[in-house]
C-alpha cells in the first residue's frame, strides 16, 4: 500500500505555495538488484492537484523524476479553509490521495 504524502502549503495573499513530498521508488527499469535481475519500471505517471474539488495543477511525468519525488507549485485564487488534495497514479495503477486544509 502506498505511503502518505506530506503536503505543506503557505498562503501569500490569494496564492497558495504548495510543496509536496511523495513516497515512491521511481524505478527506472534500468537498475539491477544484487542478483543481477533487472528491477522493473515502477514510477508515478500522473499527478493532479485539486482545490475544493476543481483541478488546478496537473502533471504527466516519467521515471526520470527522482525517487521520493518533491514538487512545488503555486495555486491562484486560494484562501484559508480551502481544501487542497493531491492525487498520484503510478504505472501499476497504484494511487494515493492526500488532502490538507489551507491555513490562514
Amino acid at each position, binding site marked *: 500500500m502506498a505511503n502518505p504524502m506530506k503536503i505543506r502549503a503557505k498562503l501569500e495573499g490569494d496564492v497558495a505555495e504548495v510543496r509536496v513530498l511523495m513516497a515512491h521508488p521511481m524505478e527506472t527499469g534500468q537498475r539491477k538488484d544484487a542478483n543481477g535481475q533487472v528491477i522493473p519500471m515502477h514510477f508515478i505517471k500522473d499527478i*493532479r492537484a485539486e482545490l475544493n474539488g476543481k483541478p488546478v*495543477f496537473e502533471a504527466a511525468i516519467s521515471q526520470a523524476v527522482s525517487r521520493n519525488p518533491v514538487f512545488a507549485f503555486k495555486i491562484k485564487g486560494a484562501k484559508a479553509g480551502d481544501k487542497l488534495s493531491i492525487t498520484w497514479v503510478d504505472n501499476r495503477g497504484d494511487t494515493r490521495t492526500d488532502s490538507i486544509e489551507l491555513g490562514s
Partner: protein
Amino acid sequence: MDRTRRVALKGAGMSSLLVAGFATGLLRPRDAWAADWNKNAFESKTVSDALNSLGVQKVVPSADIVIKAPDIAENGAVVPIDITSNIPGTERISVLVDKNPFPYVGTFDVSKGALPYVHLRVKMGESSNVRVVVTANGQHYEAVKEVKVTIGGCGG
C-alpha cells in the same frame, strides 16, 4: 479538451491512451487525466523525437523562461530544478534532459489555476543541458541550462 491542446499534443492522443489504459486494466475512468501521458514522447530517445511526439514543430528561444538549477550537481540521482515562465498565457511547462536515455521528463499543466512555476527534481545520467519548453497561446518557447554532474564519494 480545447483546441490549443489538440494542436500542441499530437502523437499518442487521449483516445489511444484510454484504450491502452483500459486494456491493461490500469486506469479507471476517473483516471482519465486532462494532461495526456504521452507514451511516444516519453519513450523517445532523442530530444527531437520527443518534441515531435509532443507536437512541437517550431520552438522559439526565450529569455522569459527562468531556469534555476545548480551549475554542478553533487549527485545526478537528484537534480533540483526551479522553473518560472514570464511568458504571458503560459499553459504548460515541459522538461527534457538532453543526454538522458529518455530525454522527456514530463509536462506540468498550469493552465487551470496555477502560476507558471514548478519545482521538480530529476535524475541525470551525465552532465547535460536541461531544456524547458513552455507552451503559451499555442506557441512554443524554450530555454536551456547546463548542469554538470560530478562523481562523488569514495566509490566513483
